[in-house]
């Protein structure tokens, strides 16, 4: 199917997407982690199944964005939409799929009463991702990640 005619759709993730998500993650990270994605999927599906989103082209899942609205994290009492994991199949990048996924997540966060979305990016190792988040409106925040070697 050519790029021009392929139908791109974003919809809430369901339990059948676990296999496709595992494959995309494997393509991106080189690691096959089915157990981890099963755990993550069921976590979202039982808490707020309309929050996690997948993008599909002609019925094939090519990207996903997982996140949810939580309150009380890190002293932030206001409902906050946390973007936790996002990935797009490297074979179909450059078609604004990540942007569409992010917009779908933001729309859901708004519906759940969140006025802000937040995420964390390691700017040293994930520069591309940081640039992507900037492109969809994220900016540096005063909430600083802290780390301690153990």
């Amino acid at each position, binding site marked *: 199917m050519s790029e021009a005619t392929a139908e791109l759709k974003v919809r809430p993730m*369901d*339990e*059948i997407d676990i*296999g496709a998500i595992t*494959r995309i993650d494997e393509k991106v990270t080189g690691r096959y982690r*089915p157990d981890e994605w099963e755990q993550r999927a*069921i976590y979202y*599906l039982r808490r707020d*199944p309309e929050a996690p989103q997948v993008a599909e082209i002609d019925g094939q899942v090519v990207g996903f964005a997982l996140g949810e609205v939580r309150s009380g994290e890190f002293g932030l009492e206001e409902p906050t939409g946390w973007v936790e994991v996002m990935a797009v199949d490297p074979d179909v990048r450059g078609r604004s799929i990540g942007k569409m996924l992010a917009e779908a997540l933001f729309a859901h966060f708004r*519906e759940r009463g969140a006025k802000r979305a937040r995420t964390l990016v390691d700017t040293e190792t994930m520069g591309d991702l940081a640039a992507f988040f900037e492109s969809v409106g994220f900016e540096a925040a005063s909430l600083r990640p802290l780390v301690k070697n153990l």
Partner: protein
Amino acid sequence: MEMEITTLPKKYHSAVERWRDLYLPDYHLLVENWEKYFPKEPEFKLCAFRALGMCSSIECGDDEGKPKYQRACEMDENKAHRLLGAVRAQASTEFGSIQQHQLTLSRAQSEEDQFWILRMMAEELRHGYQMFHVLLTDDWTSVSDTSGEQMVEEILEMRTGSHVLGAFNVDFDSFVDNIVFCCLIDRVGKYQLSMQKVSAYAPMAESMPRMLQEEAFHLATGVVPLRRWVTEAARGSRYTPMSLIQKTINKWFPRGLEMFGDERGGGANVRLGFKPMKNGEAQEQYHAEVSRVVRDLNERFLRERVPEMTATQAERAQREIIEDGSTLHGITRDDLLKLPDRRFYRRRGVSAFGMVGVDGQTFDSVDDYLDHILDSMPETSRAGRDFKRHAELQRQVASGELTAEDASRAAPQLQRVGGVCPCSKSVRWVLDDAKSGSGNGNGNGSGHANG
């Protein structure tokens, strides 16, 4: 989506709680262990949720674009009658599935699986409660002489064997049934709920969003344990081998297909604005979706058994093993899962009582066919009343004593008669009279399913 939360009047609320104490006796365990298995998630609450701000005009059918009905009395009699049947059937399935799950709940291999199922059962109870809310907040006297109170009593008195839809009358024999049921039968429920989300009757449509949210977890409760079981099977575990999963799929898949109703029917529901898809179209989508589940499970098995196999290789291997009958890495067709032929073990719809096997092979001898069904299902199904009744009807069809259509109407399903039995305070049931055509029309009309 904003939700309006309500509870039923006290006597009905208490009746559901009493039913819960009888058929869901482990409910208190769920409450006690909620924080352990579902940390930071809102506790379960027995109530009805109605979504606010949904589409207010009819979304399909002859009256598309007109305002949705708020009350049954705004509809013509035929429409209201059909709607009432749908609501009662939906309520029946919700309570029916709890009775089935309870049979084998305690046989779960893992506590986590058990608590997932327990939560699912509590949510099915809430779905039944939601349907009572729909029944009790309207006046159905224009189409029924049964009061709301009697309708509630009827549904709460039903036992496995007397529910409106076949799948809810089939006994569970092991915890594999609980899981495969969630994967296959709750999936039909998802379709029905999704279709009813556009119902021309606003209270029904508004009941669906929350039920669908909960249903998403119910489906995962089926698929995730199945994925773990096939992984363990690939490692050589003997607890839940692929052959048992396959046989349990063979047991439930035909019932799932039938829950959509006859493949040729469902047009009336579309015309009347109650559902956006005919039975055959919805069943087709269901088949494609379940095929995807099976392919994913096979991939999980193959990659666990042969760790160096990539996703693409696993996809190819699956095709070669299943379609070409090849043996790869010692894995044969019998080691992987397959959906049975759609005509296998059917008692409703176009293939009812046709003697077609799991691989599409046909049988001339009814004894050979019944043996094939038994060989294809878990051993414990052999002694069940559901199979016994099916076998009797299959023989009657084979001998020409009954037509397949009559047999469909008489297939394991009971019909309520004569109101409430004064001596036992229960509802009396008799088998449908196949020739009277007094069945609920499920054989040729629309299907319903639990959600």
